[in-house]
């Protein structure tokens, strides 16, 4: 048996791909997370009210999602209903998160894979023809950070969501400034998404596939008009039919945790079957974004690739549509009154259990806490990247079979491995936590 170990870059965190071969036969493909910090262990004993401050540090790329999942879990425990303005400010935090994340994933992580015969090492190596791309991409992600800071306080690890609401509003002047900068970001984002789309089609022509893996289940926590602040998990079957939605507290009835050998991350099965989360899952489940530019892009997307779409690399283009949507939607929300006294209701944190759900950039994120005497006695983090782990492994197997033959191992294999993994935009710090 031959074992190929392929290191990975341009993803969040430390991971590698291991492919086992017997001659020209691909036996197995593994996606292994090689880091661990152990949040589920060390938050035991922490005061429950500190969780929204501690858990964003699980991941600096999707910190806002953890901040909000923590607050929602404690609110579920306290039985408190959050005022509508506070929900709106929290949604703005999430939109900032989505802008920052999708811009990072699209331009810094995957765009270098697209040009030429072999791609380039980084966004900064795209060359003269594409010299406008890097500065614009960085400016768009910065607009996302700016929105997180405005809505969430601190710029990477937000603090503003508190149990029962938010600790402060957004003044009309600050909102107007943010809208102006988002309008600029929108122009840049649509330029970038168009450029991405062109290069992506070039890649498609060159390699002749966008992924040959068969359909799976899809999972997303989105409600109409609340793309990233849903309260239920929705599921689509491989044939495109929509399954029953379920609340976060029922996760254990639907999602099973599967340890992965040689990895610090577990994987997830939905009712015993493979499942995918992240951008394409959301787009399949909610195929008509409400904002004008995102809608136009989506129509083009369905026209070119059909509905529902299953090819793995389409996760990337779907992320571009979401980038545009998040900017447009944030501009809409910032038109509303987001200031005043009705941002926060008082409550008491009693003992018991609570589950909080948020649609993070990589899919549904659930925090499940047990609290006694104000201290956390157990914490479970149900992580979006884990939902995709087994789907990534199967997609890698399919790709490996394409590029290993009697003629040998194609040079394209290592590039294909990178493309498949990046399409899922895995976050290893989250997956292992």
């Amino acid at each position: 048996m031959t074992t190929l170990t392929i290191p990975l870059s341009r993803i969040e965190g430390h991971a590698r791909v291991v492919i086992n071969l017997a001659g020209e036969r691909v036996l197995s493909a593994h996606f292994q997370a090689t880091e661990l910090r152990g949040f589920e262990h060390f938050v035991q004993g922490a005061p429950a009210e500190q969780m929204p401050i501690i858990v964003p540090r699980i991941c600096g790329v999707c910190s806002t999602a953890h901040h909000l999942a923590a607050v929602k879990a404690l609110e579920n425990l306290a039985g408190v209903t959050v005022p509508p303005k506070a929900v709106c400010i929290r949604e703005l935090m999430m939109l900032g998160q989505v802008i920052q994340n999708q811009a990072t994933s699209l331009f810094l992580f995957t765009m270098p894979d697209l040009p030429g015969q072999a791609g380039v090492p980084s966004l900064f190596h795209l060359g003269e023809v594409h010299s406008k791309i890097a500065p614009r991409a960085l400016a768009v992600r910065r607009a996302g950070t700016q929105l997180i800071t405005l809505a969430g306080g601190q710029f990477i690890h937000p603090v503003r969501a508190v149990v029962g609401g938010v600790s402060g509003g957004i003044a009309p002047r600050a909102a107007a400034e943010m809208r102006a900068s988002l309008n600029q970001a929108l122009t840049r984002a649509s330029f970038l998404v168009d450029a991405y789309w062109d290069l992506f089609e070039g890649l498609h022509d060159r390699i002749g596939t966008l992924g040959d893996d068969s359909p799976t289940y899809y999972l997303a926590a989105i409600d109409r008009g609340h793309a990233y602040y849903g309260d239920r998990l929705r599921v689509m079957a491989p044939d495109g039919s929509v399954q029953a939605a379920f609340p976060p507290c029922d996760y254990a009835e639907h999602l099973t945790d599967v340890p992965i050998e040689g990895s610090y991350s577990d994987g997830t099965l939905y009712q015993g079957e493979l499942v995918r989360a992240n951008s394409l899952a959301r787009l399949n489940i909610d195929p008509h974004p409400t904002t004008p530019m995102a809608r136009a892009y989506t129509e083009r997307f369905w026209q070119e690739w059909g509905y529902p779409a299953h090819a793995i690399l389409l996760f990337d283009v779907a992320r571009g549509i979401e980038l545009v949507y998040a900017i447009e939607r944030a501009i809409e929300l910032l038109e509303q009154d987001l200031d005043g006294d009705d941002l926060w209701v008082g409550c008491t944190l009693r003992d018991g259990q609570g589950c909080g759900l948020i649609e993070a950039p990589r899919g549904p994120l659930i925090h499940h806490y047990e609290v006694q005497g104000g201290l956390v006695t157990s914490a479970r983090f149900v992580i979006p990247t884990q939902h995709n782990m087994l789907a990534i492994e199967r997609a890698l197997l399919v790709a490996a079979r394409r590029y290993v033959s009697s003629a040998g191992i194609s040079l394209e294999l290592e590039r294909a491995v990178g493309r498949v993994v990046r399409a899922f935009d895995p976050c290893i710090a989250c997956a292992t936590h």
Partner: protein
Amino acid sequence: MNQTSSAQSDSTAVATPTFAVLQLSGCSGCEVSLLNADVWASQQELVYMPLVLSAEDLPPVDTLLVSGAVYSDDDLHRLQQTAHRARRVVAVGTCALSGGVANLGNRESARRVFLDDTSRRHLPRLLPQLRPVDAVVSVDLYLPGCPPTPRLFEAALKLGEPFEPAKTVCQDCGRIKTRDRPDRLARHSGVAIDPEVCLINQGYLCIGSSTRGGCGAPCTRAGHPCVGCRGPSNGFISRSADEWFAAIKRVFERMTAISREQIDAELRSPGLSLFVFQFADYAGAPRDIEKVL
């Protein structure tokens, strides 16, 4: 960003300064902040940063930014293997400086769970104790913060004006301290926070008074007490955690009417987020204040 690699550049030209990023056990938040800094259009050339650049190995480099704590045998190995290739080593973020949030995992109960797990023996193992970067290699510059602001990265790469932090977060914050001495904590009250008045006067245990300034106090401005992610202010850097802790308590005793016992219980509660940043395990040797941004 200069796109020609230094190896290819004309040997008569002044070499472009290079930098690299080594990521140990952390959350990538430090890198996300770096991506927001104005360093990408500059003459500094990035030669290694797996998060955004596919490159085989870390070459000899002018400035090595190290983020994250030394938590696994793999972290230790990579740090020892690469630090000597750099002219300057910069420790980036609270994890690299003092362990940061993962330092909570140094509690005995938490460690036992990790170390007992042998099912994943092909993976990097956690060390018996988490260490800051300067416990392993010598550090030329420290960038405190969780994460450090983009401005600090610019200063570390010698771009723009030199950076002068405010002494404490209180100076950055600008809320006014009054004579009101609250007799209870305000937690979960739902009472709107006055944007002009010090949070301690409103019943919150904010530790901005002993925390290093320079962040612009984004948290307190958003109505949340400072949890001290910038670490100790100059006066406390080389003192013991206990002295620092006593100073924080004195502030609360002076400014509130909450009993000494309750303040003590609040601050000492296990894993309180203050501990995440402020009372972590330092390298032992006192740090040179001049090296801390």
